[in-house]
């Protein structure tokens, strides 16, 4: 049976990880797929997984009562979805909706949090990698806030 290890070992988010740590992560991973228009996660719900998108496109949305769902970002192949599983109280801060048929690898958050508590080296490695993702998203958000294409 083919495992997820070869794919995860080559994924940019996990590339170069200690094989022992990679094995732990593979043990918390499973394949998932979502139909177009299917919600992957909802704001306020418990963050039970995070996802590595294998194929497809996902919209991160904030629902507003007057304008309905506003897409704040889209992510796709190779991107990581969700970091609320790392930060108490482990609840999602936005909605995520597949806008195309999407396949992903889901990482069990409770399982990983427990492993990170047991093995701080693994925790530190994951935090470093998530810090990189968060920094990139923050930079992109700052640029969006600048409204560079508007009339000033």
């Amino acid at each position, binding site marked *: 049976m083919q495992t997820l290890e070869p794919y995860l070992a080559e994924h940019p988010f996990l590339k170069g990880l200690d094989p022992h740590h990679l094995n732990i992560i593979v043990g918390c991973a499973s394949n998932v797929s979502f139909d177009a228009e299917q919600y992957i996660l909802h704001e306020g719900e418990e963050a039970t997984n995070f996802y590595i998108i294998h194929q497809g*496109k996902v*919209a991160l*949305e904030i629902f507003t009562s007057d*304008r*309905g*769902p*506003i*897409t*704040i*970002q*889209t992510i*796709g*192949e*190779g991107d990581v979805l969700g970091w609320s599983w790392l930060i108490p109280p482990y609840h999602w801060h936005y909605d995520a*909706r597949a*806008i*195309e048929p999407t396949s992903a690898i889901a990482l069990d958050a409770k399982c990983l949090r427990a492993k990170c508590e047991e093995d701080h080296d693994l925790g530190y490695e994951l935090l470093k990698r998530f810090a990189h993702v968060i920094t*990139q998203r923050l*930079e*992109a958000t700052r*640029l*969006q806030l*600048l*409204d*560079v*294409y*508007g*009339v000033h």
Partner: protein
Amino acid sequence: MKSIITEPMIPKPFRIHRKLKETHDTYTIELESTNGADGFPFSAGQFNMLYIFGVGEVPISISSDPSMPKMLKHTARSVGTVTKALLNLRRGDILGVRGPFGSHWPVEEAVGNDVVIVAGGIGLAPMRPVLYSFISHRDKYGKIILLYGARTPEDLLYKKELELWRGRFDLEVKVIVDSASGNWRGNVGVVTTLIPRIQFDPLHTVAMICGPEVMMRYTLKELQNCGIKNENIFVSMERNMKCGICLCGHCQFGPKFVCKDGPVFCYDHIKELFGKREI
């Protein structure tokens, strides 16, 4: 194609043939010479000074196909007195045209290479002629990739052409907007986030960027991270241009003049000036 301007300060009369609404504040106007026989040779990336009689003159990039010099197109956004007056003109009205001025995109230098075009907002307008040139000589180039960022889906220029280009197997077109409602099926985010999603040969790629300066700054960083050399990156700069022929000094950019040395610059030649607050 090099044009010879014999009287660069004298506007030639052109008639508005058609006016197309692109977005709520942006129009493309098609101009034909009042002397119908005259063509207007230009190169992709050059601009004209458009003179609205009694109001003033404004520099606007040429957005039409360089191989069709009889029909000049300019895409302008209504932001100031002159552009507002320009876009209030109607079919049949006459305006003055001086030009074409400035440098052009390195269409010839890019032969044999992959090409990455990054446009933001109305920055797609000066890129359209270069796309026409690449498409009409498609076999001379490797991959041709267009990355286009806009504020919202409603602010996208040339929507029909974008669809046509996206439908071609020999062009890769990715569009992204800063924000969108739930109905939008495309990408949302900043244009720089598209760069890691594309594949090209960094050592044999020519990149061309046009958009707001801050967008170009971050785009440059991403392209450099991908391994494209500074000498293969070209940017289109914008400054307040008046004479168009390097006399008045309004568009001075350090030791250079955007109207004559630019607007298209090789990044390697301006890297010390680019992003400097005092310039």
